[in-house]
């Protein structure tokens, strides 16, 4: 088939390569504008607190201070990224109103003539905070009496009336009864920073025609534009977003957090405004890959087939939703792994804690499921006395198999991929494994399944 193609399949030189090696590639932050102001955030020093008062008087006297923005200046003071993909409720404030739910939450935006003046003014804002009890563990957050992070009375995202995203296929309890082995594991992962080398940022520039041009390194240009238009309550046609060259994303630049407030500041000052995260803000404030706790319980037949798999997952969303509720749905769809398992039960909880919010990162909802599942597969292999290759081959899904979410598998090539990996490392596979394919199961291919 490749023979029919001319350029698809060829390693043509990257079209941006010369720009990259000469440094001529223009990133958003390589632009400067006359009169450009700098925005820095006053952030919560506490994990959870009630805001009793804010005193800007000393900050306002700093030489170079231009203005401060509070939540009262924000027309629609809620981020709308979930709303844009049809997920409710919107709950994260652009600037905190009466409460902060994580250390680093933005409270006041300071706009100043220079970055140094902005830093100085930020340091002079006095916050009157009443510290509240905080919760940091996904399971402690679900206990009765735990501090409530959200505005709706419990610490989970609600999926159509359920506190978790559910997937159900067959009857796991009955299959556990029949199983020869029960293998259980608990897997924990830490939050991780996307750490793109270029930090998240933008410059919003007022134009003579009343529009605003926003130079940004967002991963999703229209997401950012739509979100900004709603928060500012202006027609989208007043906004012009320019991007396309991003100094690394890895999911960290899908949150569209910086553009709305920078554009608002540009609107209120009628000057270009730059807002870019510092490296420590990128690490301590911007969204992370969520931490996970994943419980897996498997019922295994004597010959190593997985008869039933029950997965209970908790993702630490931090203080707000951002993209994590959506990640749990993707997680639930993939939490049984690339295996054919007739009985599956998955409960995937999006849990809120007083931690910096999590959101998207490379492998959204799947990376840590793959970690847990593939370590679990080795546990199963050890329990039933099979080698790690065999356990995966005999359980691998085939085209036409029903997945836990009830879509029939297509494009399944796990078996062929494992065969190629074995060949790469010189692992001699037994003939029966070498003969397998991912083709739909026929006679002799579904050996002994229930």
């Amino acid at each position, binding site marked *: 088939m490749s023979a029919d193609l001319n*350029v698809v399949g060829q390693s043509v030189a990257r079209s941006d390569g010369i720009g990259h090696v000469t440094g001529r590639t223009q990133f958003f932050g390589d632009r400067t504008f006359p009169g450009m102001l700098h925005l820095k955030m006053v952030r919560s020093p506490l994990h959870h607190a009630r805001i009793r008062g804010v005193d800007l008087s000393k900050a306002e006297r700093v030489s170079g201070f231009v203005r401060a923005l509070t939540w009262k200046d924000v027309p629609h003071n809620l981020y709308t990224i979930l709303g844009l993909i049809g997920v409710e409720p919107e709950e994260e404030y652009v600037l905190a109103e009466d409460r902060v739910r994580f250390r680093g939450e933005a409270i006041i935006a300071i706009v100043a003539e220079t970055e140094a003046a902005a830093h100085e003014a930020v340091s002079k804002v006095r916050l009157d905070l009443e510290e509240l009890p905080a919760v940091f563990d996904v399971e402690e957050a679900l206990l009765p009496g735990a501090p409530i992070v959200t505005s709706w009375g419990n610490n989970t995202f609600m*999926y159509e009336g359920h506190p978790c995203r559910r997937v159900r296929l067959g009857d796991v309890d009955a299959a556990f009864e029949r199983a020869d082995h029960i293998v259980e594991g608990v897997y924990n992962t830490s939050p991780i920073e996307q750490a793109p080398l270029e930090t998240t940022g933008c410059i919003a520039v007022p134009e003579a025609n009343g529009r605003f041009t926003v130079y940004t390194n967002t991963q999703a*240009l229209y997401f950012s534009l739509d979100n900004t238009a709603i928060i500012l309550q202006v027609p989208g046609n007043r906004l012009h977003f*320019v991007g396309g060259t991003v100094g690394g994303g890895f999911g960290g630049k899908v949150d569209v957090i910086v553009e709305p407030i920078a554009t608002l500041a540009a609107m209120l000052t009628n000057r270009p405004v730059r807002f870019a995260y510092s490296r420590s803000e990128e*690490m301590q404030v911007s969204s992370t890959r969520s931490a996970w706790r994943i419980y897996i319980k498997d019922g295994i037949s004597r010959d190593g087939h997985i008869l039933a798999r029950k997965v209970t997952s908790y993702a630490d969303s931090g203080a707000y939703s951002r993209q994590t509720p959506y990640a749990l749905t993707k997680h639930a769809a993939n939490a049984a792994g690339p295996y054919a398992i007739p009985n599956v039960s998955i409960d995937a909880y999006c849990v809120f804690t007083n*931690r910096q919010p999590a959101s998207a990162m490379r492998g959204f909802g799947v990376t840590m499921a793959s970690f847990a599942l593939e370590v679990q597969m080795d546990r199963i292999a050890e329990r039933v006395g099979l080698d*790690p290759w065999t356990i995966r081959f005999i359980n691998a899904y085939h085209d036409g198999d029903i997945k836990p979410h009830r879509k029939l598998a297509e494009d399944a090539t796990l078996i062929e991929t494992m065969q190629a990996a074995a060949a790469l490392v010189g692992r001699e596979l037994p003939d029966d494994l070498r003969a397998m394919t991912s083709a739909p199961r026929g006679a002799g291919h579904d050996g002994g399944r229930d």
Partner: protein
Amino acid sequence: MARLRGTGIAAVNYPTGMNLGGDPSQALIHATTSGSFVVSLSATDLGQGLRTVIGQIAAETLGVEFGEIVIDTADTDTGPHDMGTFASRATHRVGNAVIAAALEARRALLDVASEELEAAVDDLEIDGHGNLMVKGAPSRSVRVADIAALAQFKYGRTISGRGSYMKAKSPVDPETGAMDPDSTEAHACTVAEVEVDTETGEVTVLSIKSAYEVGRQVNPALVAGQIAGGAWMGMSHALYETTAPYYPAPDHSPRDFSEYLMPGTLEMPEIESVVLEMPSSNGPYGVKGIGEMTANSPIPAIVNAIYHATGVRIDDLPVTPEKILRGLEARQPGPA
């Protein structure tokens, strides 16, 4: 001092596209007077090489040289809507939109050529190098560039095309979780080899060897780049990275790159890979998407290799030297 070696494997799948669909990507293409084709998008390039692979897909579909394609992205005043670059969706979604736009532009080009060459559209072909000819009659060949100019100055036509790709939004059954959560699935299998210093608990990743099945490689060199970078990131996740070193405690969160640990040039393992191509039914030229998944299989492969080497199972990421040392000490009571 003992240095123990072990190998581990992991096999994974990875879904392409925003899981529940409803995520459009659009493309517009028009020809210039000189026969170049401008592809207007609003998709962003994160460094994976989007501009390059989309240019290849456009060139392939139009039948012209890669150098004749100009990718104009991302500007909301000129580029049509795109949901964004994430979820391993860009090559799949934007590629499909560009194919649709290119086919429409190609048809407009052939319509003009048909008149100019007095031949039926179905009898025309473009050779992939910018030559347009009557099938079986190589002498009746013209340059695409000449037709593009004639379209503008003789026929007063545009040579342009519009394309959109969207997987319809899929609902989720809240009781059973029944849903359609992917467009296609790519696969990977990784074998990792590690060495563990039993006195310090330090892990050296010696090699990460993987097979990837990605449907179709539009640009093998760029795929190789994703694999090498993803393997490194997977190793980094497995052994180093955290914003909360003592999770769930929130203390000691890093502020800079000396505290936020990632492996460097002195920790590079050997990386080897093989790529299989089993084209998907719905990807552009069979593409599945590789961007995200390359970091996934190395993580459990490394963790399994550590167990194979030491007999200590660590189920908490990152696997720090301290966790290994505590595991070893728990197995063999008494000071090391």
